[in-house]
């Protein structure tokens, strides 16, 4: 079964950086029916990366500010994992570039993980598993995407929803730290529900890839741009996300009432509220950053905790559940406890 328990690793702090360019769905001429979109998705503002700004740039900024706020030296960081779907290059891995830009030691372990909506939960399990034996004392989990740059501006099923963000989570080996608990699921038969068909090895980028095609009313895009089959993703999300959270809580005998924060992947308000109601979670325990930032792919879980729960996480202990679900199809839930975290102010990168 896809349950995992990892001891001896604790989260010390979190940071997020947004691109300076902020769009308002209500005034963006590219968004039709803006009020309806706002009502159904809950998304008003989105921060969009300009050409040339990458997810690794955003994560680099978040990581530098977090290291400074934690008073950690970059050379002390033993391992770095970068979760993303929008790397700097097809190769090399962006994590190696980040090792250099952040000034990490050449003895550091650096790895990219190519995951989206479920990526924070997977990435957290990866880095915590690496660190649990105590060989690595300090680690950085960088999670972010510039997914808006993969959307067609003429696609109403993607363009108004997605924003860009980079986050950093700092972790430390600490004997006796409360165990992190995980549940994971995967269904590759749903790969076509969220996909960029061209540009990889299966369908290499060709002249044809760049041609914009009319798919449906209000939906035109090329094969090198993001496809989101809304109905399939919705149907998947409202069944798998609650199942996963339920499985996690039941398997590890965690009382739902004792959890302070349920940070869900920010897909859209209609879907997220269905999930919350199915699990019968009190609305006060379910923070939303959707109105401010939209769907920022793998960054949504840490971004939501940073933007909506800064004070609570900084002062005292909190019990948290994170749940990511989407592209893959892939989903996962995590339970982790935090104490007096360092939460950096949200950064803006120009």
């Amino acid at each position, binding site marked *: 079964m896809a349950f995992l328990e990892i001891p001896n690793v604790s989260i010390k702090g979190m940071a997020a950086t947004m691109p300076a360019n902020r769009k308002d769905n209500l005034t963006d001429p590219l968004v039709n029916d803006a009020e*309806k979109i706002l009502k*159904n998705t809950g998304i008003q503002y989105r921060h969009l990366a300009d050409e040339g700004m990458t997810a690794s740039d955003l994560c680099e900024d978040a990581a530098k500010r977090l290291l400074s706020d934690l008073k950690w030296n970059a050379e002390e960081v033993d391992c770095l994992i970068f979760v993303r779907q929008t790397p700097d290059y097809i190769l090399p891995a962006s994590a190696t570039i980040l090792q250099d830009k952040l000034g990490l030691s050449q003895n550091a372990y650096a790895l990219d993980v190519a995951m989206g909506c479920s990526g924070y939960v997977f990435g957290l399990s990866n880095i915590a598993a690496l660190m649990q034996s105590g060989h690595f004392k300090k680690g950085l989990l960088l999670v972010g995407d510039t997914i808006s740059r993969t959307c067609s501006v003429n696609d109403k*099923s993607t363009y108004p929803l997605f924003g860009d963000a980079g986050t950093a989570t700092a972790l430390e080996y600490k004997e006796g730290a409360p165990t992190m608990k995980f549940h994971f699921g995967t269904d590759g038969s749903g790969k076509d529900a969220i996909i960029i068909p061209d540009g990889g090895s299966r369908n290499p980028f060709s002249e044809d890839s760049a041609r914009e095609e009319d798919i449906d009313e209000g939906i035109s895009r090329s094969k090198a741009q993001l496809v989101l*089959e*809304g*109905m*399939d993703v*919705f*149907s*998947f999300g*409202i*069944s798998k996300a609650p199942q996963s959270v339920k499985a996690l809580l039941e398997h590890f005998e965690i009382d739902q009432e004792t959890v302070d924060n349920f940070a869900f992947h920010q897909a859209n308000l*209609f*879907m997220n509220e*269905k999930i919350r109601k199915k699990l019968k979670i009190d609305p006060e325990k379910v923070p939303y950053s959707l109105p401010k930032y939209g769907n920022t792919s793998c960054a949504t879980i840490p971004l939501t905790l940073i933007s909506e729960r800064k004070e609570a996480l900084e002062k005292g202990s909190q019990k948290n559940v994170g749940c990511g679900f989407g592209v893959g199809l892939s989903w996962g839930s995590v339970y982790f406890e935090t104490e007096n975290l360092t939460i950096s102010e949200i950064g803006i990168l120009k």
Partner: protein
Amino acid sequence: MNKEEFIQFFAEQFDETEPEEFKAETEFRQLEEWDSMVALMVIAMIDEEYNVKVSGDDIRNSTTIADLMAVVESKK
């Protein structure tokens, strides 16, 4: 599965279309109010009331409410 009940649940997902307009043979995708949001609400209704997961193709391949009802029945 109760046919009248399914049609009633289906009709409840619409704000403006009169309930009387919904019959088993109604071609729902031709209704003026039908859009991607109503589609999601129908998917959610089927999930909640029948514990059945319908896909985008299931919706697209159904012409009438009866067609969709048959899909739900087959997946139960």
